[in-house]
């Protein structure tokens, strides 16, 4: 029999309903795996007792014929989602000891569907990072190892690095992530799993620690396209508590996986082939195009002319919103307080001690671009370019149904690499940021391994609120890719 931790969510749901195993057994298998793989540092807070209690309650519900859509499925929750009574840190020192008195809408919906929470997953501090090396609670390690340098510790990507590592290492069947500029898709690619950033407004942001409110979006991460769709079914939906949450119906995303993509037009943006794009990334992209052709879709070259301006636009808009959102961390109402002689002195000392270097840097950039005399030159200018980037996609989607690109310009790199200057690290998100600025759904799925045995991901981008087409195409690519490689120790 397959190890319980290697099952997909879909197969586990079927096993639970047939009585092959209980939710308690399934949960215990994941708690054992969690204990065995603690060196990955995927979890900030483990909640084993709570998980077993929830699993018992799930078994009772199932026995009573009242099982929900994800009943008994053990999940990890990114530690950016507020969880009632359970420490929530955003991987920052400044939220020391913070126990929310309420539950985020998305994590509540997953509970309502019957899922079991294993704990709170590590991330980059306030979701700011692409390698999970800015967490106050330490780096997360990628469970995958390079063939040429097996001793080297690799990054899981970021910011949802704990989520991606946990799902890949089989210490969660699925996880929540959040994505502001690539924070679900890039770590999914680095860890050989699937993740989708839905359309902005598809999932409620209520109760998620805010980074950049016009970009932040929650989404699921799992090991198959179908599992990812099942999780999104439970997470999505209108929420009156988030005024930007879209009042639109939620389709059955899993039902979209028909396997039939005949006649679909797939856009291949020529701007995503910059000089110096590695051969192996290019090769896997070409392979992806061939798979879609073989399934009856038609590739169409498209142009997204403002692509090169997405990164500088993002690094004005996101820090500006962050500097405003993070003003709430002042030592008064929650988290860390460092005493000072005056009120201002307390604010400054608390924020200096509480924020790490990357967060401090982004707050300061944001403060500067919003300050008197610079607002128009930086912030308003970036908002205008953002519209041009979004319009590029609108025009492209007149001719195509979905867009295919690489997820990231490389496979996972070593912990400590790419840290010479902040901009080098930011280049990781060059293929994911444009989608975020335009608010579109973007999914990453594993498409193959590089020469070093590390996973490479491909990204599918869809029209607003057309996750169904994205899932449908992803399902076909997943079958064609036949990605069965697993990291060490699985």
């Amino acid at each position: 029999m397959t190890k319980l931790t290697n099952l997909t969510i879909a197969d586990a749901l079927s096993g639970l309903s047939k009585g092959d195993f209980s939710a308690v057994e399934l949960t215990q298998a994941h708690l054992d795996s969690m204990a065995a793989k603690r060196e990955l540092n995927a979890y900030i807070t483990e909640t084993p007792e709570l998980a077993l209690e929830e699993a018992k309650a799930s078994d009772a519900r199932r026995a009573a014929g009242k099982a929900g859509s994800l009943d008994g499925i053990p999940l990890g929750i990114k530690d950016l989602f507020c969880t009632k009574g359970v420490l929530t840190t955003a991987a920052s020192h400044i939220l020391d000891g913070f126990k929310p008195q309420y539950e985020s809408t998305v994590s509540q919906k997953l509970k309502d569907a019957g899922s079991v929470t294993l704990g709170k997953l590590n991330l980059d501090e306030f979701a700011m990072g692409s390698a999970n090396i800015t967490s106050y609670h330490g780096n997360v390690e990628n469970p995958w190892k390079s063939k040429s340098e097996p001793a080297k510790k690799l990054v899981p990507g970021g910011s949802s690095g704990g989520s991606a590592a946990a799902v890949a290492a089989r210490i969660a069947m699925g996880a929540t992530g959040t994505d502001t500029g690539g924070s679900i898709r890039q770590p999914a690619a680095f860890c050989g799993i699937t993740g989708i950033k839905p359309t902005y407004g598809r999932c409620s942001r209520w109760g998620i620690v805010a980074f950049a409110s016009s970009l932040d979006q929650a989404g699921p991460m799992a090991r198959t396209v179908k599992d990812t769709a099942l999780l999104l079914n439970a997470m999505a939906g209108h929420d009156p508590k988030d005024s930007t949450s879209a009042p639109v119906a939620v389709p059955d995303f899993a039902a979209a996986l028909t396997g039939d993509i005949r006649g679909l037009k797939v856009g291949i943006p020529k701007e995503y082939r910059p000089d110096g794009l590695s051969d192996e990334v290019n090769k896997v992209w070409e392979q992806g195009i061939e798979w879609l052709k073989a399934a009856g879709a038609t590739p169409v070259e498209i142009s997204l002319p403002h692509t090169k301006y997405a990164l500088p636009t993002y690094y004005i808009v996101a820090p500006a919103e962050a500097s405003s959102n993070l003003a709430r961390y002042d030592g008064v109402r929650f988290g860390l307080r460092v005493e000072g002689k005056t009120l201002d002195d307390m604010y400054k000392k608390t924020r200096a001690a509480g924020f790490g270097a990357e967060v401090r840097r982004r707050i300061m950039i944001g403060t500067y671009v919003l300050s008197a005399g610079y607002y128009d030159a930086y912030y308003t200018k970036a908002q205008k370019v953002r519209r041009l980037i979004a319009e590029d996609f609108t025009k492209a989607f007149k001719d195509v149904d979905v867009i295919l690109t690489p997820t990231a310009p490389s496979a996972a790199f070593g912990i400590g690499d790419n840290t010479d200057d902040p901009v080098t690290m930011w280049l990781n998100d060059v293929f994911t940021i444009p989608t975020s600025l335009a608010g579109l759904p973007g999914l990453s799925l594993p498409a193959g391994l590089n020469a070093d045995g590390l996973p490479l991901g491909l990204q599918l981008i869809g029209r607003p609120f057309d996750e169904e087409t994205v899932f449908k195409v992803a399902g076909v690519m997943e079958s064609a890719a036949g990605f069965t490689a697993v990291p060490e120790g699985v």
Partner: protein
Amino acid sequence: MSLDKATVRNIAELARIEVRDDELDHLAGELSGILTFVEQLAEVNTDGVDPMSSVADITLPMRQDVITDGGYAEAVLANATDAVREDEGGFFTVPKVVE
């Protein structure tokens, strides 16, 4: 854009983050590098383009101006350092502001 130390000190002041004198040079270098990178936007022609503040293509909803939530001061105060409990007045505390 190259920021000098005085400007960095002013930004830190606006952001209410204490910065030591010996950090100013390094921060000025980092922040100047980032600003130089983002300034490439100047080459994009944005004449007549409206700034985009949200991608959510929806009109913000209206609702009746009535109280629908609240009444749990104890929960609001639960995470604050040195908060005064609800039955003793119920407030946050900060260092003395008025002499």
